[in-house]
């Protein structure tokens, strides 16, 4: 399964049937520090590429999470509300799943190695 990354530190995995699974990277979690609240999207909500669909809040700041693809929310990881540590999990740390409408939107996103290079520039 391909994983792509955004400059805002979201990761996006593409499952079959044009379903995109979105979470935030370890770098983002580390930068935020201790998390205290997460605002999840509603099932069935539709977001366009670049829209803010979730908010992850630490003691100090609220960080908006953006979707890199346009689509409808088809799954929400409600377990995160009670366990922010789950975000770290590769398999269970996703925030929401979207049914993509335009796979071309994935073009231009970074792959793993490009993201690692990018991290070196933002340090």
């Amino acid at each position: 399964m391909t994983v792509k990354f955004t400059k805002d530190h979201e990761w996006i995995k593409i499952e079959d049937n044009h379903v995109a699974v979105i979470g935030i990277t370890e770098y983002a979690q580390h930068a935020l520090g201790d998390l205290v609240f997460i605002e999840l999207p509603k099932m069935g909500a539709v977001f366009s590429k670049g829209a803010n669909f979730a908010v992850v809040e630490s003691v100090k700041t609220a960080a908006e999470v953006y979707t890199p693809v346009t689509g409808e929310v088809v799954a929400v990881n409600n377990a995160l509300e009670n366990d922010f540590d789950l975000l770290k999990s590769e398999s269970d740390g996703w925030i929401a799943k979207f049914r993509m409408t335009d796979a071309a939107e994935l073009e231009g996103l970074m792959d793993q190695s490009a993201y690692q290079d990018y991290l070196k520039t933002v340090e």
Partner: protein
Amino acid sequence: MKLTSLHGNHLKLNARMGEFAGYDMPLYYDLGVLKEHEWVREHAGLFDVSHMGQISLKGKGAQDLLQKLTPSSFEKLGINRAKYTVLLNEQGGIIDDLMVTKIGEDEFHMVINAGCKNKDIAWLKDNLTDGLIFTYFEDWALMALQGPQSEAVIKDVLGIDVSDLPYMGLWYKDYTMFISRLGYTGEDGFELSVPNEAASPLWDRLLTDDRVQPIGLAARDSLRLEMGYCLYGHDIDANTTPTEADLSWIMSKQAKEQASPPTRKRVGIVLTDKGIAREGAQVKTKSGEIIGTLTSGGYSPTLKQSIGQAYLPIEWTMTDTEIDVDVRGKLISAKVTPMPFLKPKTKGKV
């Protein structure tokens, strides 16, 4: 950016640094904000607050001048006792909030906010009368040891018994270290003032005790917010008066009599629904009218809910008044709550 004399100690401890009032300060250390906050409530936390200004006013008329520039009376304040007060401008607005310790008759030591240092010093100097000596202790550091185990740590690590020191009391033996029993956390605790060159070794020595952890400014903010303490530039500023800020307890009888009744007042706000409201969030009535803005706000690690402060019109300041707070366009139910949000554990006797 300016550095405190403990800057190197913070870097050695791998602190996450950030700018505050022109200083490069530790925001949090390896423990992280939440655990640091809890640590202070349960053990003893060590803070670098050297960015704050330490000044003194000495000479005949010092007390009169302080009584002119603040709404407080210092007449009944004992020697080596501190008092919280505010500097007021000519319009009665708050220039800064500060701790004033009476060292002797007509000799006062003050700790002022980092971001207000320049204007406070200028204001005091402008108002100096003949025979008054103003001193800025630029080469002195200040650290705070806060939490229920602080007294024991000071005894065991420094060999100084402060068990008899009352809340708001000052201890010193020679002129190398001044220990005051006060703080900004609501816990029993102390502030230690030492010359810059003594700061780094003292910091390291205190940290050798397992009961002590270094604590950054992020937890300092969440700790003070739970106590409903004001943060200058946010909860109080030149456009707020002591009565509006609900600080009439610092006012002398005379100042109270002269003050006009406020039309708005600083209150505590607790979110009763899920979410976190921060500074700048609008406070609305249940019918949607905007009645104020949060001047501070955030997550309370102890209460595990969102708390904040706001100035609301007097008619909306009754405890348990139901309101909404607008968080990114979403209305979250909240209510007016008395402050402090938690019961302070500072030593009772004064």
